[in-house]
């Protein structure tokens, strides 16, 4: 494989994957927050 500009290609791929991973992490964090909130609210309703 031609190695000219290899570094920038690597940066490019890295950037693309980083963005995807960041978004997945964001989704996971939101999921956890929602689950906690859901449990909390369910408990509140059950206490009635």
């Amino acid at each position, binding site marked *: 494989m031609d190695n000219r500009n290899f570094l920038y290609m690597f940066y*490019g791929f890295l950037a693309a994957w980083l963005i995807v991973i960041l978004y997945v992490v964001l989704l996971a964090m939101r999921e956890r927050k929602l689950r906690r909130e859901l449990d909390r609210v369910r408990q509140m309703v059950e206490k009635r």
Partner: protein
Amino acid sequence: MRDKILYALAAIAAVLLTRNLYTIFFVLGEEKNQGAIWRIFEFHFPAGILGLMGFIVATVFSVVYLITNDLRYDAIAAAINEVSLMFAAIVLVTGSIWARIIWGVWWAWEARLTSMLICWLIFAGYLMLRRAIDEPTQRARLSAVVCIFGGVDAVIVYKSIEWYRTLHPGPVLTIRGGGGMPPGWQETAYWNLLAMTCLAIILVMVRMRQETVSREIDSLRRLAHSF
């Protein structure tokens, strides 16, 4: 059932992506002028398609929401917009890196990247608006309106900026009459499009479910406070 679909899609995406990465790095030939960097196109192009199509599809769902007032369509639109925003970000970043190599600058105000940037701004505004409204129905209604404006404008932006500036490497896909890339790259780009579409669908479904859960929380909270 839904989880099974998710896992199936994830498996397909994983297989395709592995195969594509192998193809991109080891099978495809050389491009004489750009060195290794052009391989990024295999991700840049599918991300562009997914981003733009996502925005348009979300606009359609927004119209459907305004007609039916069914909050599920709002959830779909919001999820698609968020995922498309991510793909648009990928387009901008990879395009910028590519531009650094080819044109020597990190950003050149050429037609397609500029249009994508404007779409990114419009739909980032959409997400910002959603965060600013707490009440679900009002949020759905107002963000649907913004999405409609955004979707219509996205089409206009694309056409008009093409007239305004023309520096982008001309259409390189053979369907539009371009050429000049090593053999096999176009096919790989479409395979990658398939893989990334699977990924997109997974992300949208996860995000959509989060919207539904969030609404369930809202209604439970209202129930809890109503006694």
